């Protein structure tokens, strides 16, 4: 008899499917994983509808509907270890940015007052009701391992899976994007914040030094930094660093403001004000998480309302 394989269940909730596709992008390495696990419940790979007992469970996506909640609970009760797989499961991700709107507002935009839609009422039959909020899975079930990333780079997926299979801690470091970014921080005389589209950024210098808001220094590296190394500011898709998450008085905007005001001639309050004005942009991936949402100074609904009122 061969050695018993690790039994694996996976499930996806409210997300784009990209985390599951990322597993396919292990390319030839996927065979190492497939050799070590027995895939059971996995809506993309198998036709097992029940949730058999499993050693390991991967859940991607946030909880948006009652159906999502039920699936998460079934995964928890069937799996010994549960991994929150990807930013949506860990922090809510982009679907989580739906929390600042009521269901009625969403229905109104999509179905009632929409440029090309001529009917004026939302669907009523057969569809599962949306919940009031969007919820990261650890507010509903216990989670044993967090693997954020949008999606996590396949190298981190392999590390996490092998760690759980081999019963060892994951090797992934808890560094920020800056650790892998090739740009250099320099002191500059830049006096105003630039929008992303102001001019064309210089290729070797830190975006913050140039006056562009980049979230690399407050974002956990689960991607190997493709954005700043290809000329694009980090938008925080893997979620915040431990420092931001764990300290109540530290936040994405205060951390960036401290760093950027040291690197440039831009006053700290200007940076804070700018980031609050664009809070829906800067907090888009993590706003649904209580680790960000419950901070005493985090007033995203107020900030967004102020911007919308200007309209």
């Amino acid at each position, binding site marked *: 008899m061969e050695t018993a394989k690790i039994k694996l269940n996976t499930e996806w909730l*409210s*997300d*784009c*499917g*990209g985390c*599951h*596709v*990322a597993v*396919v992008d292990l*390319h030839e390495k996927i065979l190492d994983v497939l050799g070590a696990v027995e895939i059971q419940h996995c*809506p*993309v*790979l*198998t*036709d*097992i*509808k029940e949730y058999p007992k499993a050693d390991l469970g991967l859940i991607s996506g946030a909880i*948006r*509907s009652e*159906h999502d909640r039920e699936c998460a609970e079934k995964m928890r009760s069937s799996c010994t270890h549960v991994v929150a797989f990807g930013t949506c499961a860990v922090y809510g*991700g*982009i*679907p989580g*940015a*739906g929390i600042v*709107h009521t269901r009625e507002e*969403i229905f*109104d*935009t*999509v*179905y009632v007052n*929409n*440029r*090309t*839609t*001529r*009917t004026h*009422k939302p*669907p*009523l039959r*057969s*569809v599962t009701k949306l919940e009031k909020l969007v919820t990261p899975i650890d507010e509903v079930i216990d989670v044993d391992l967090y693997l954020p990333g949008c*999606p996590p*780079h396949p190298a981190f997926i392999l590390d996490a899976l092998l760690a759980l299979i081999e019963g060892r801690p994951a090797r992934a470091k808890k560094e920020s994007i800056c650790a892998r970014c090739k740009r250099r921080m320099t002191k500059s005389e830049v006096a105003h914040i630039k*929008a992303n*589209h*102001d001019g*064309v950024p210089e290729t070797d210098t830190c975006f913050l030094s140039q006056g562009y808001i980049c979230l690399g220094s407050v974002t956990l590296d689960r*991607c190997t930094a*493709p*954005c700043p190394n*290809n*000329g*694009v500011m980090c*938008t925080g898709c893997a979620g915040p660093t431990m420092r931001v998450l764990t300290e109540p008085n530290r936040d994405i905007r205060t951390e960036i403001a401290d760093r950027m005001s040291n690197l440039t001639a831009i006053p700290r309050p200007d940076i804070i004000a700018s980031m609050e004005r*664009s809070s*829906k*942009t800067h907090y*888009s991936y993590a706003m649904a998480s209580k680790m960000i949402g419950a901070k005493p100074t985090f007033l995203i609904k107020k900030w967004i309302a102020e911007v919308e009122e200007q*309209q």
Partner: protein
Amino acid sequence: MNRTITIDPVTRIEGHARVFLNLAEDGSLESAGLIVNELRGFERILVGMEADRMPLITARICGVCPSAHHLAACKALDAAAGVEPPPAAKLLRELLYMGHFIHSHALSLFVLQGPDLVLGLDADPAVRNIVGLVAANPEVAKKALRLRSVGQKINELVGGRGIHPVTGVAGGIAFQLDTEKRGMLTAWADEALVLVQELAPVAKSLLMKQLETHQSLLTDWSHPSHYMGTMQNGRPNFYDGLLRVLDPAGKTVREFPTADYDTILTESVVDYSYMKQVMLRADGQEHAYRVGTLARINCADAMATPLADGELTAFRAAFGHPCHATVMHIYARLIELIYACERAREIMNSPDLGGETRVPVKFTAGRGVGHVEAPRGTLIHDYEIDDQGIVRAANLIVATQHNYLSINRSIMQAAQSHVVGKDDDGLLNAVEFAIRCYDPCLSCATHALGRMPLDVEVRQGGLLIRRVRR
């Protein structure tokens, strides 16, 4: 009393989806449809965000075709700012996209539909999957998987990452190609072109064999409709061009720029589904229509590259024009896969590839509409942007929506020819196959190792009288 058969879940289209079949007392089919059971509300979520983040944020609509959303967003921003990206940027965007098409079409053809073709629609479900495919023909399977990988590598190198690419920006592309990357891309493009020429004859002969065995695929599943696809000089172009509309007789009835889409396409709510359906206005009437591989091939005067054009000629000679057989989405996908490989190679030879890749942009209050042909059909992004560069309204029409009316009609046809009066296994296969022909977003990459899970409930007067699962 009526019976209802529910197939749940069929596949994922932005979430869980299921099929219902309503049978009348005499067992005849009354109605059938696909229920899409998830809504995230992107059109609301995007409002209030910085416009230049749209290529990154909207990629998250779909992990299967993120490159399509990424580029549609870039083009909508270009239009809103009134800029024209430099030639090198357009080429790089298109190259990124050819990589995505190679990955997506190879996966769909060889991994999703491959098992149907190699092992046959009647094969034992336990082996009718990619594992069974590898066992039956390991050399073909290996080459097919390699072709998918090479496509994704091209997508990743140009896009910065494969899933949720990052390099497309308003006004161009955020990096310039160096010699090292150019060398890698050229090698991959060469490899893809060799692989596709080895795989194409195999795929074709397998498809022909299934058509001989199941002749109803061509007869009963013919579905005359309007078609829409993007053309440049009458040749399909995935990245840019005019939208052409063909009537069921094969006559071009409209050709319009994307910016006019809202005067031609009309969405409406389907009472039982979170996904809206779309109709098209032409000749003073509204029509259901199809987009995607077969639609583009039907709209084409010719293909822009030689091998693909030869294949189109052979296809037309065998199956006529326009071809209404839903199963021919597969053949059309093969023609497009050949085109994508040839086009990628062609781009690598272009002298313009090394130049400037970005022009500065400035948003003045206004609106921008952009579109691309996603692997599964036309994808439209429309943003209203204020003078601060903030999105004030967003409207999106995705590929599967255009096809929604037709998918429901194909489910009806599949049920009628293969279901009514036949055993439940035939029903499952036929409905599943009909849906897969459209490759609806997420009958996708991620079904890579198997078949769609199906659960059929037969109800009479609300009571469960029979249940089939696999």
